[in-house]
Each structure stands twice: as structure tokens, then as C-alpha cells.
């Protein structure tokens, strides 16, 4: 029997103005990206808070991927810069908790970057696959079981 391959579940917060369109474009161009990502469209990555990332991990995500506009290209001027700072803060907090910070990553793309976005997603899936499942899911049961 073949050993079961771990398929990470990754939440991808994609900005409406760039990454979400890029993902759409990737689809139209028939570029494949792994089905491990669950895309959540956000009006701007600046809308994202530490809370969202932490809750995603608590609810069983193996990785969280944030895709915002290229720096300097944010529709709301600096939403992606704010997001970058929050992602960095949350990465530190994840380490405090005991979760590998590599499970949370932010990238910047434009609306025309279907291929690069797909590649970044593939890279993220591979990183998380190497890390294995979210350790919180493995350690005993809690009231909050994985909802993904």
C-alpha cells in the first residue's frame, strides 16, 4: 500500500484588486495550482488582522497565505504595507505559541500575475507539506475541532 501523502489545508486571503484577479486569470489560462488552498477574497489585505490568522490556525489550518498587491500598487495606498506588519507580528506570536512561522506567509502580486501566483501557491503548499500538519491538530483533542 502506498503511504498516505499529507495534503495541507491552506487558507489564502486574496486581495480583490490583485491576487483574487490573478487567481481568476490563472484559471482562465488553465494554469493549475494545487487544490489545497481555500481562497477568501478580501477587499484589501489591510483589512486583515492578527486575529484572523490566529483563528485560522486554531481552527485547523496547516498554513495561511496572504496575497496582496505589489508594494506601491495598493488600491488603498498602503493596506498591503499594514498587512505586512501584521503578518510579521503574527509570525513572532506563532513562534511564541510553538507553531512554525513559515506556516504564515505574505506575497505581493499584481492582477496580471496568474503564473507567478500559481507558482507561489505551489511553493507554499510544498513548504507546509514538509512541515507536516498543524501541530495544534495533532496534540490531543480540544473543544474546537478542525473546522476545515
Amino acid at each position: 500500500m502506498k503511504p498516505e501523502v499529507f495534503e495541507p489545508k491552506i487558507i489564502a486571503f486574496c486581495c480583490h484588486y490583485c491576487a483574487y484577479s490573478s487567481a481568476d486569470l490563472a484559471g482562465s489560462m488553465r494554469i493549475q495550482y494545487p487544490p489545497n488552498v481555500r481562497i477568501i477574497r478580501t477587499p484589501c489585505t489591510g483589512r486583515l488582522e492578527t486575529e484572523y490568522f490566529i483563528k485560522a490556525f486554531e481552527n485547523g489550518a496547516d498554513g495561511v497565505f496572504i496575497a496582496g498587491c505589489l508594494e506601491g500598487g495598493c488600491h488603498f495606498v498602503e493596506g498591503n504595507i499594514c498587512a505586512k506588519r501584521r503578518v510579521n507580528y503574527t509570525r513572532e506570536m506563532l513562534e511564541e505559541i510553538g507553531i512554525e512561522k513559515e506556516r504564515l506567509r505574505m506575497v505581493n502580486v499584481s492582477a496580471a500575475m496568474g503564473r507567478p501566483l500559481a507558482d507561489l501557491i505551489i511553493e507554499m503548499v510544498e513548504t507546509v507539506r514538509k512541515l507536516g500538519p498543524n501541530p495544534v491538530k495533532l496534540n490531543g483533542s480540544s473543544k474546537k475541532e478542525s473546522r476545515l
Partner: protein
Amino acid sequence: MIVAERKKIQDLLEIVKSHKKLLVLGCGTCVTVCLAGGQREVSIIASALRMAAKLKGQQLEVEELTIERQCDNVFIEQAAEAIQRNDAVLSLACGAGVQAIAERYPSKPVYAGLDTSFIGILEERGIWTEKCAACGQCVLHLYGGICPVTRCAKHMLNGPCSGSREDRCEVDPNRQCAWQLIYKRLKEIGQLDRLKKIKPPKNWSRSQSGGYRTILREDHRV
């Protein structure tokens, strides 16, 4: 406002390790504004604690609640039931709020989740600065509204010291010399003559000497 910052998750876990049911209690006033202990931080810290506990094999159930003000009995009432049904409280209020809860529930362990730092203001987004040390006898009127007790590294009442260099403090060149600011401000408002008078030592008996301070207002007693 009172400014505080959160303790590290592992330190918090160590503090609460003997308990199985924990209430993380936020405060809706100062610590909400300084982004340390409001509803959002309660939610983040509670989740972080649940995950960190699990990873350490510690059994921990965490309930979340935020009340308007922890330093006020009227509001503490709203947390009564949640406090009763948990083994301990991790308060995300300032030190005064934590102690108010502890006094009100003498048989319940109550812990501080934050390090209360100072009385200050939001200088710019994400930067808070200390402005007042609550010395008990305010002398701001003599110094153009800039507090030498808090903002001069040497707390000089008759400054500047000889280390002031091009408006920088000699103790930390990243900081402005408080006395330069005082001079500029007094000049601006035409009160430079205030500096001609040597100030006598401050009456520190009104600060933290002889234990905690109280204020009694007979007109408000019942």
C-alpha cells in the same frame, strides 16, 4: 491613558498552568485604546493560549469576556458569572483593574496578563509615549506644559544638564532633550522669565512615599 503591553504567551501559560478553566478578561477602556487588553486582544490571547497549552499537553479551557471597565465595581458586576464558573482569571486590564477584580473575588486567583507601563499618549500610529509619572504635585505650569519629571532622563527641575546636544538628550541621542523643548515652548508663549527662578526641590512626599496614595473627597462621601 494608561499604557500597557502583553506578556509573552509562554510566560502567561506558566502563570496559569495550575488551572484547567481560565477566564481571559479584557477591559474596554485604556488598554483597549492602547491595543493591549481590549476585546480583540482577548480573542487573540485566548486562542494563542489554547494552542500553546495543547502543544505542551496542558489541559486548558479558555473563556473570553471583555467588560467596559475593570477598575470600577459597577462594571465588574457584569463579569460575576463568568468569574464564578472559571478556576482563575487572567485579567488584561492595567494593574489597577487586575487588583480591583482580585479584591472583589478574594477566593479566586486573579493574574495580570499585561505589563502596565505608564501614563501616556498615542504619539503616532503604533507608538505610545510616557507623559506623566503621577508625581502627586503637578508642575506643568512652570515648564510650558512639558513635564521634566517624566521626559527628562535625569528628572531635572532646573535644566538642562550640560549634556544636551543640538536638542538631543545625552542619555539617549534618539530622544529629544526635554529641556530644549521646555525652552522652545516657554519662548513661544513669552514666558522665558520663568526659567530665571530656581525651582526648589520637589515635595516627593506626595509621590510614592509611605505606601499607596488616597484621595478623600468629603463632599462625595455618603
